[in-house]
């Protein structure tokens, strides 16, 4: 089955649709016209550049270029994670990078090298989009888990210190905060999996079907990717907490305040 291509003219027709939200915003004085148009402009430019870059990567299909691209994705995801979870880069960058890298690459490699086995195994058409989907979800999970874990200890400092004074080690005293953080991080994905296909058709599956794949193939890929995301999210969220925890407490077991980014 051939995919119907969108021409430049088709895209112009699509942008015309924007007149409707613009009119609603103008009429109701929502004040979102400028932000919306800027966001759409940015999205268009970013996706055009990514499109060009991906075409190049797919054509070259070099192991080193793919590796560099995935590493760049990881670095960007790590910086974003730390910024959003309000943690200081200086104290946590290496540990969270290691945690995400292990959680993400181990599952990615298993899926690509053991399950789908493309030829060559580093085929950019598989590695890059799958990496993007897994990493995007890991990022979301890591932000929630790190933020919940450290803010939980900070907000319940008396409770945490009580555990220490009752003889708990730092791992023991932080266990309940770890559980809460990991549950919060993974629960949205569990809920998504439970309702997938009923409430909404997932983007990857829809994309594959529109791209000409059979629904059966698309479904199998979707199941695979959801399982990979689930595993990767949980592993990287847990490792991020376990790795940062080693450096987040002083020798008295108290949470170091310099673990948090300075508020502006």
């Amino acid at each position: 089955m051939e995919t119907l291509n969108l021409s430049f003219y088709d895209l112009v027709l699509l942008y015309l649709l924007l007149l409707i939200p613009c009119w609603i915003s103008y009429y109701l004085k929502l004040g979102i016209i400028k932000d919306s148009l800027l966001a759409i402009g940015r999205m268009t430019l970013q996706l055009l550049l990514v499109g060009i870059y991906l075409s190049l990567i797919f054509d070259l299909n070099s192991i080193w270029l793919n590796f560099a691209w995935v590493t760049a994705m990881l670095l960007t995801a790590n910086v974003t994670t730390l910024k959003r979870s309000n943690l200081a880069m200086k104290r946590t960058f290496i540990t969270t990078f290691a945690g995400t890298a292990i959680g993400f690459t181990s599952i990615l490699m298993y899926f690509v090298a053991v399950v789908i086995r493309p030829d060559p195994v580093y085929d950019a058409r598989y590695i890059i989009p799958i990496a993007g989907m897994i990493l995007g979800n890991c990022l979301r999970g890591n932000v929630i888990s790190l933020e919940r874990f450290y803010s939980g200890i900070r907000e319940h400092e008396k409770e945490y210190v009580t555990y220490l004074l009752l003889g708990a080690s730092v791992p023991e005293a932080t266990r309940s905060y770890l559980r809460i953080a990991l549950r919060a991080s993974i629960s949205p994905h569990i809920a998504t999996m439970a309702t997938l296909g009923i409430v909404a058709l997932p983007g990857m599956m829809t994309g594959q079907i529109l791209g000409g794949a059979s629904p059966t193939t698309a479904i199998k890929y979707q199941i695979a990717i959801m399982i990979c995301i689930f595993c990767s999210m949980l592993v990287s969220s847990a490792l991020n907490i376990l790795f940062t925890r080693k450096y987040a407490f002083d020798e008295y077991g108290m949470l170091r305040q310099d673990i948090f980014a300075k508020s502006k």
Partner: protein
Amino acid sequence: MSSVIALKKVSLKRGEQVILQDADLEVKAGSKIVIKGPSGCGKSSLLAALAGCYSPSAGEIYISGQKITGQNAAKLRRDIAFIGQEPVTGAEIVREALLLPFSFKANNHLKTTEEEILSVIERLHLKPEILDKECRHISGGEKQRIVIARALLLKKKIFMADEPTTGLDLDSSHAVIEILSAPEFTVISASHDEHYLGHQEQVYMFENRKLKAANEVK
């Protein structure tokens, strides 16, 4: 008699601000000492430092003759029970709260029995039914006594108590004072409660960054 707790030229900081300077104090086994001072002067910070929660900016703190350092703080503070103004039970059910510390590795060598729990509960004028109640459904005074009961089960002998009777009803307050007055316990507390102060042997004033003996009450 040797000191259970000793401060030698101890200074404490809160952020960059010095809150205590060159404090010396020796607390003998079985002593009951209370620290008075304006609110916010740093009494709670001093108690936390004495409990081995953080290091002084200068000077040395000793527990049972051993200087507290980052390396041994976790070990030394196992001898100390900390009773805060807002008691933290740390579990949903009272019984779970009492048994919580026994789940920690460092307390593996300690054991408790149902008889022991019931005896401690009775000693604190609590009814056995409380054991199955949810912690959020018991009063502040009961919570305070549960926290003390936990310390007794852990055979702790040194108590740091931050306003232990503030906000408690008369019965709870009496029970707390009675147990903390037992001769086998060494108690260092911070309090403004006149009734509680009347039961302490020595009052120290914490004012203008200095810790000074105020008077001999008994």
